[in-house]
Each structure stands twice: as structure tokens, then as C-alpha cells.
């Protein structure tokens, strides 16, 4: 094999943020295969320094519009731990409900709007409005309902309003939650089943490619861990979230404004597929059935199957949302004020599963409740090294295909990770020197 190959996809489309795919092969020898992150650095540390604990989540949720809820909840958990603020069971349940909504919203957006056009060989979702109107309408309906959860519980699906340190500024009413439940049962469930059918029809288009790697996600004793749990690796098992730096080990590479990560190997995978591999035993029956229909098996190491894992866990989120609403209504909603009286000032860590994988925030506060140190590690940043490793294995395997086909496989590979590039270049990894 003596092929020369020079692929340069500038500003990859249908991903969040700006990234380029660059592959260089000279006489059959792969010189370069990497995802360059060219998103402008954000420097969130400059924004957070000295800010009040009231503002930390407001600012960090602006790291990313798509993952804003995830950032917000993770930030609140870190702040609450640092300041010793206890939250009620109602607060935890409402937050779990919000995470389900955000996960469904993001997964539906990715599967239908960003990934599906690849399977159908079109440039965007817009041509599908004419060719597959019922599918587009279903996708819009599902996304809307997922967003409704955010609107009702947090005031807004993008950059939520009501979740604050210690609780919520407004508690949804029983009538609002009952209505959400009705829509989840009457609309979301049938739409999810139809989605599984649609995905099954497209499954033949998913490239067959495998590369064993380390999968890292949260894992808890009682549920499909999204809100909290231990950090769990398919290589080394569970460690508490206080050990997160040992599991991330950030480093700078020249081709990316986002830092890269590694744990026990050269790279690792976070996201829906990692959650599936670690927690498939905790999924509800509907999701388990969806996995079976779609051929998703434990131990799966085909990154392209991440989209399938997203669909599967969306089913779980819908079912569990109904269970959470039932629990809230059964106990009765209380008009609680947020608990904002700090009992200590120190360092706190929040770790949450957001749609693209495990997200860490860590803050240190001074005695005035102002931030002195902050660190955020973003799922997309954690996946970047794994993406590069995938590309290095994939390109030689498909090198005898056309350049267009290779490019298309590479683009689909990156999109399968559903990367959130704005997030990854937040740049919030600094201990301030006072």
C-alpha cells in the first residue's frame, strides 16, 4: 500500500463548535490523523475569579448552550459541597428530572438532526422536511417535550433560571408536572418506539469498526447513574469523585485549543456508550428492549454505536422521568426556599453525567463566598484523544476506499461522539494566585 492521502475538513459541520479533521498519509505511512480544535479559547477563569457563589453556575452554564443544564447542575453540586449546603430530596428529584430532559433533548437533536442526515446521505435535516415529514415532525415533537421539562422545571431549556445553590427559586406546580407526565406517557413513549424502528431501519448504515478502549462513566448502587455516583472505569472499576484528577490527567496538545485527557491507557471514552457499557444492568425494560432491537451489546467498542446508545438511554430517561414525577406528586410539592446559608468555606467537587459524558467542576471559595480556584473538565475534552486514536486505527483499515468515502467515515466518526467543542475550550483550569 503506497497511497498518499491529504484530508482537511475545515469547520466540520453539524457539530457544536469549530473543529477541523486533518489526515496526512505519505506512501502508505500515516503521518497525521487528528481532530484540530480551532474554537476560540473562552478563558472562563477570568470570568469566575472573585465571583460570588450566587454567580458561579450562571457563568459556567454559559460555557455551553447545549450542555448548559449539565454545567449548571454540576456547578451547583460543587458549590454546595464547598459551602456545606444541604439540599432536600425534592431538589435532588427535580434536578434528576431536569437531567433526563436535557439528556433526551440532546440525544434526540443528535440522532435526528446531526447524525441521521449522514445515514440518509443528505447535507442536513432540512431536505428531510420534504422527504420524511413525519420523521422530522416526530423529532421536533420529542425535542419540544424534552425542552418542556426544562421550561417547566427550570424556567428555560437553554441556560436554566431556577436552579440555584441550595435549591430552586421556583418550584413547579403539581398541575404542571401532571401535564408533563401525561405528555411523556401519551406522546413520548410512542415516539420513542417509533424512533427505535427508524433507527433499526438505518442501522445498516452504521460503519463496522471496533477499537477496544477504556470506558469511563459514573456508577451508583441504585440507578442508571446520571446525577451522581462513583467514577467507574471498564479497566479499573470504581473510585470516588474526589479522585477525578487521577482519572483525567489533562494535557495540552498543539493542535487543539481544548486540552486532552487520559486515564489508564493512551485515551478513554466517555458518553452514552460508556454509560451503556458500565450501567446496562440498571436500565429499565423499555430501554433494554430497545438495545436488543438495535443490536447494542454490553462491551460494545464500536464508537459509531454511540448514537444507538443515546437512543437507548433516552427511553430510560423517559420512563424514569415519569417515575420521578410520580414520586414528587406522591410526597407533595413543597414551596421550599433555597438553602443558601454556608456552613463552611472550602473546596467542592461536582461530577455529573451530561449527554456527552462525565463532567467535573471543582471550586474553592474564600470566607466571603468568593471563588479563589476553579477547574472544569469537559466530556468532549476527555474524548478528543480517543477520537485521534480511533482515526489512527480507522484510516489504515479503510485506506483503499475513495477519498470522499474516507472523509465521510471520518466525519461520521467525529459526529458519533457528538462533540461539543465550545464546551471543550472553556479553559477553566487554574488555581488563582492571590
Amino acid at each position: 500500500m503506497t497511497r498518499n492521502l491529504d484530508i482537511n475538513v475545515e469547520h466540520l459541520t453539524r457539530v457544536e463548535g469549530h473543529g477541523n479533521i486533518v489526515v496526512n498519509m505519505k506512501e502508505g505511512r500515516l503521518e497525521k490523523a487528528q481532530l484540530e480544535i480551532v474554537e476560540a479559547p473562552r478563558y472562563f477563569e477570568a470570568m469566575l475569579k472573585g465571583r460570588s457563589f450566587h454567580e458561579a453556575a450562571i457563568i459556567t452554564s454559559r460555557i455551553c448552550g447545549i450542555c448548559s443544564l449539565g454545567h449548571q447542575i454540576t456547578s451547583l453540586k460543587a458549590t454546595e459541597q464547598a459551602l456545606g449546603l444541604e439540599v432536600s430530596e425534592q431538589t435532588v428529584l427535580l434536578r434528576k428530572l431536569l437531567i433526563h430532559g436535557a439528556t433526551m433533548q440532546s440525544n434526540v437533536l443528535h440522532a435526528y438532526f446531526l447524525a441521521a442526515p449522514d445515514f440518509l446521505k443528505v447535507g442536513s435535516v432540512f431536505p428531510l422536511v420534504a422527504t420524511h415529514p413525519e420523521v422530522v415532525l416526530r423529532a421536533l415533537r420529542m425535542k419540544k417535550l424534552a425542552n418542556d421539562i426544562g421550561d417547566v422545571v427550570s424556567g428555560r431549556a437553554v441556560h436554566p433560571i431556577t436552579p440555584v445553590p441550595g435549591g430552586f427559586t421556583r418550584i413547579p406546580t403539581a398541575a404542571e408536572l401532571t401535564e408533563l407526565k401525561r405528555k411523556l406517557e401519551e406522546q413520548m413513549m410512542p415516539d420513542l418506539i417509533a424512533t427505535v424502528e427508524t433507527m433499526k431501519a438505518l442501522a445498516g448504515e452504521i460503519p463496522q469498526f471496533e477499537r477496544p478502549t477504556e470506558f469511563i462513566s459514573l456508577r451508583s448502587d441504585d440507578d442508571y447513574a446520571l446525577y451522581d455516583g462513583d467514577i467507574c472505569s471498564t479497566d479499573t472499576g470504581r473510585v470516588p469523585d474526589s479522585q477525578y484528577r487521577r482519572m483525567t490527567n489533562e494535557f495540552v496538545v498543539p493542535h487543539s485549543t481544548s486540552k486532552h485527557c487520559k486515564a489508564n491507557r493512551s485515551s478513554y471514552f466517555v458518553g452514552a456508550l460508556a454509560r451503556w457499557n458500565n450501567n446496562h444492568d440498571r436500565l429499565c425494560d423499555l430501554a433494554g428492549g430497545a438495545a436488543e432491537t438495535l443490536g447494542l451489546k454490553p462491551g460494545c467498542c464500536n464508537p459509531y454505536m454511540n448514537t444507538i446508545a443515546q437512543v437507548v438511554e433516552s427511553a430510560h430517561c423517559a420512563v424514569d422521568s415519569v417515575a420521578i414525577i410520580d414520586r414528587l406528586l406522591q410526597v407533595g410539592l413543597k414551596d421550599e426556599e433555597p438553602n443558601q446559608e454556608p456552613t463552611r468555606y472550602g473546596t467542592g467537587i461536582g461530577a455529573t453525567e451530561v449527554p456527552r459524558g462525565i463532567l467535573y467542576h471543582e471550586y474553592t471559595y474564600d470566607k466571603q463566598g468568593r471563588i479563589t480556584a476553579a477547574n472544569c473538565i469537559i466530556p468532549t475534552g476527555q474524548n478528543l484523544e480517543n477520537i485521534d486514536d480511533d482515526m489512527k486505527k480507522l484510516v489504515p483499515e479503510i485506506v483503499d476506499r475513495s477519498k470522499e468515502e474516507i472523509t465521510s467515515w471520518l466525519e461520521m466518526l467525529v459526529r458519533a461522539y457528538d462533540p461539543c467543542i465550545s464546551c471543550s475550550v472553556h479553559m477553566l483550569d487554574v488555581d488563582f494566585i492571590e
Partner: protein
Amino acid sequence: MAQKPRVAIFDFTGCEGCELNQLNFEDQLLDILAHVDIVEWREAMDDRPGEYDIAFVEGSLSTPDCIKRIHEIRRRAKVLVAVGACAVQGGINGMKNIRPIEQVREEVYGEDKYLFPTLPALPLRAVVKVDHEVRGCPMTQIEFLKVFTALVMGKEPIEPTSSVCTECKLKENECVFTKGMICLGPVTRAGCDAHCPTFGQYCTGCRGLVPEPNLEGMKEILVEHGLSVQEAWKRLQLYNAVELEGVRS
């Protein structure tokens, strides 16, 4: 309208939450698509043709490359609409301008700082002519629809100049000051229907300052409600650091 306007959507430094909010018009998306041809939208599609009637642009300008790109977009767009706090007034990004940029870069990237060029964050209007604005963080959806409809009808959108308080009072929300919180509503531009106070949270000022704001008066109000002068100023800077540059704190 004889021909559908060609619409393009671009993003610069920001979180892309405004673009996501455009995709979140689930109920209106098909109506919107019926009135325009979307010709460029990296987040949602592949195609890339040349000229457009309306360009919606999100994000601040913060690298030399951004400056080049925005000039190019301005050249190709008949109407340029800044969307969201980052594009309109610099937004959250403006806070990085408060400290010396070299110091910030070094703190984040250490000795690798020269790998990534950066500039102080700027709103679009600091570099090119902006025809209309959709404010908010994320951009206010009702305002986007108003601006969009006005442009499709060929009329000038009306941009609100009164304060968030006016809309908050129309909705009879409990004043967040009454609850012992602080609020930037009195000097922040209306247009969001007082969304945050309606949900019990204080106004963080994301829609920018009203024209000719009485900043001294606002600072006094915040100090009266328990903030230090420095803290009051910081609260005002959250979304308006660029506008407040050079204003005595």
C-alpha cells in the same frame, strides 16, 4: 415577497446557545422554513453558498481570524443581525477583558500560551455595521420572532429601550428586591418579558443596559441592598463589561 430571503446563520466565540434556541422553535420552525431559504448553518447543515439577504450572527469576536470572518460575512450579507448578548454587547466574554490578556493566557495555557492567539472580546458592532439586534443570553425567542417577522415583512424591527421592571410589573411578579435579593432589572433592557424574575430569579442584566443608564443610581440601589461598591460594580459587569470599559467604577 417575490423571492424567499436567503438566510445564513453564523457563530463566533460563545456557547452556541442562541443557535440552539433557534432550533428550539419546534412549533414555528416549519413556518420559519416556509418563509426563508436557509443557505448556511454549520451547526445544522453542510451546504455553503455565497450571498445572503439576512445573516444572523452569534458570539463575540475574540481572535484575529474572527475579525477576518466577520468582515467577509458583512460583505456578503444585505442585513446583518447580531444575536445574543455575546454578539450584541460582548456578553459574558467581556469579563475576560477586565484583566490583562497576557496574564489570562499564561494562567490558562502556561508556557504554551503562544499556540493560541487571542484578542479582547468584542461585540460585532465594534468591528462592522450591525443592522439589528436580538438581545439576551440566550437570545430572547420572542424578540427573535419579532425581528424575523419584521424583516420578512420588510419593516424595521422595534427595539425596546425601557427597563425589565416595566415588563415585570405588567406581569405582577413579586419584586425580587422584596425577597431580599438584588436585581439588575431597573437598568436592563426590556424585551424578555421579565423571564428570570417570573421564575423567581434576579435579573442578571443579559439584555444589556438601557440607553443612558443612571449607573450611579443603580450602584446606590445595589449598595442599599447589601452589596459592597466593588461587588455592585462586578454584578453590573457580568454581561456589560465591554460597555462599562472606561466608565469609572
